[in-house]
């Protein structure tokens, strides 16, 4: 679930784009440098990007029946690193907007911030933290993927709350509303994404 085309007021659309653009540009520059030095990585990056896109579009057994879906950014961040994921995640969002009419172009900046920046960095941070405190790889990967998924939806709720504060209870009330509808229903899905990611991670590191 992303913020739909036209849902954000102009100022917000521009604002979130301004926040996301430098971070994605930073990731993009690092990527371009890698690719210029090793042109063959282009193909592997494209294949990885396609993998992330398919992950995010895989219908995992849905509990809520909502339009929620996994983000796939947790696994991507653990496998490819967060700076690569900012770019691949942005491309995934662009593809979702253009191939699935899911999300949007004017809301791309906001969605990139929640899914391609916050999600991967949370995942990466949690994974590194887990390793640092000696948690098993399984636990670290589970937490990284589940929290990346959940944080994306919390940020989305916050973005919507900032844009549409409740006439009575302001940002806080609005955040509660959006979080209840969008983020809370995502909790079981986040757990499932965590579990699936553990299966994937275990297999990929074993074979």
């Amino acid at each position, binding site marked *: 679930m992303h913020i739909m085309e036209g849902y954000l007021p102009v100022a917000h659309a521009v604002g979130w784009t301004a926040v996301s653009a430098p971070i994605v540009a930073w990731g993009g520059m690092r990527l371009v440098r890698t690719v210029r030095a090793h042109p063959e990585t282009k193909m592997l990056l494209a294949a990885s990007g*396609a993998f992330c896109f398919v992950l995010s579009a895989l219908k995992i057994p849905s509990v809520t029946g909502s339009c929620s879906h996994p983000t796939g950014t947790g696994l991507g961040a653990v496998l490819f690193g967060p700076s690569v994921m900012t770019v691949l995640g942005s491309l995934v969002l662009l593809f979702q907007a253009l191939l699935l*009419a899911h999300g949007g172009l004017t809301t791309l900046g906001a969605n990139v911030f929640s899914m391609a920046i916050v999600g991967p960095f949370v995942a990466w941070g949690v994974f590194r933290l887990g390793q640092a405190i000696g948690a098993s790889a399984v636990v670290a990967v589970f937490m990284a993927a589940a929290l990346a998924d959940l944080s994306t939806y919390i940020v989305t709720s916050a973005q919507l709350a900032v844009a549409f504060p409740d006439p009575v209870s302001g940002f806080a009330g609005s955040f509660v*509303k959006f979080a209840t509808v969008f983020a809370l229903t995502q909790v079981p899905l986040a757990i499932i994404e965590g579990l699936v990611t553990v299966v994937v991670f275990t297999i990929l590191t074993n074979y």
Partner: protein
Amino acid sequence: MAAAAMDLIDRIAQTNRWSRRHPAEKLMLGGGLLLLSLILPAIPAAPLILLAAAAAVLVGARVSGRDYLAILAAPLAFLALGAVVLAVSVQPDAGAPWLTVSTDSIATAATVTLRALAAVASLLLIVLTVPLTALLRQAHRLRVPAPIIEIAVMMYRFTMLAFGMAVRGRQAQANRLGYRNLRRAIHSSGLLAATLLPRLLDRGRRMEIGLATRACTGELRTLAPAVTLSPAFLSGAVALHASIAAVTVAWVTLVPSAA
């Protein structure tokens, strides 16, 4: 699965009556409407934009109404849910929060929903008439570095291959009852994803050989068929944008309650 929706959108984008038109024409038309939907007051602009965008897709590009509605269904569901959330207010006093509805919140919900509807229709106009790769070709105008565009073009290709693999893989698992309960389904999904990545990376390596045999220099330069820009189409688009803006301005000035 999303694969069916993507397949439908991609197929329409590749085969609609406007698919051979210069991408810039349709980007101009759809992008202009999208911009107007954001900056003009939703009443009366949004209904006009919705009408114009839908007409362009259905009449101009000859997209079937059934397909159009099927694609619109998902955003409509989001809109309906969002409208309810916006229309209801949380009253945090008296201990437990209360839900109330006010004219203000209903007005916000209506405006936002209308505007988003117009914007989605404009987005669909672009999405359904311009093939993704034609759009990516235009990205260099936005000064996107060539390697990023090349990765995106390749990613599109791999995405189409990956979706096929995922759909068939899932079918194969379902044939062996891999989705009979939640536990097995989580296991099967994990297996499927874990199989997909090495297969895609393998595909990437073989593609590397495929490109090398064509004297690849490191860059992935290609040439698109030459298409000419139609000045008539472009001026039509601009005229449409201008008249929607003019009607909106006139409405806002003449109808006192609109202000």
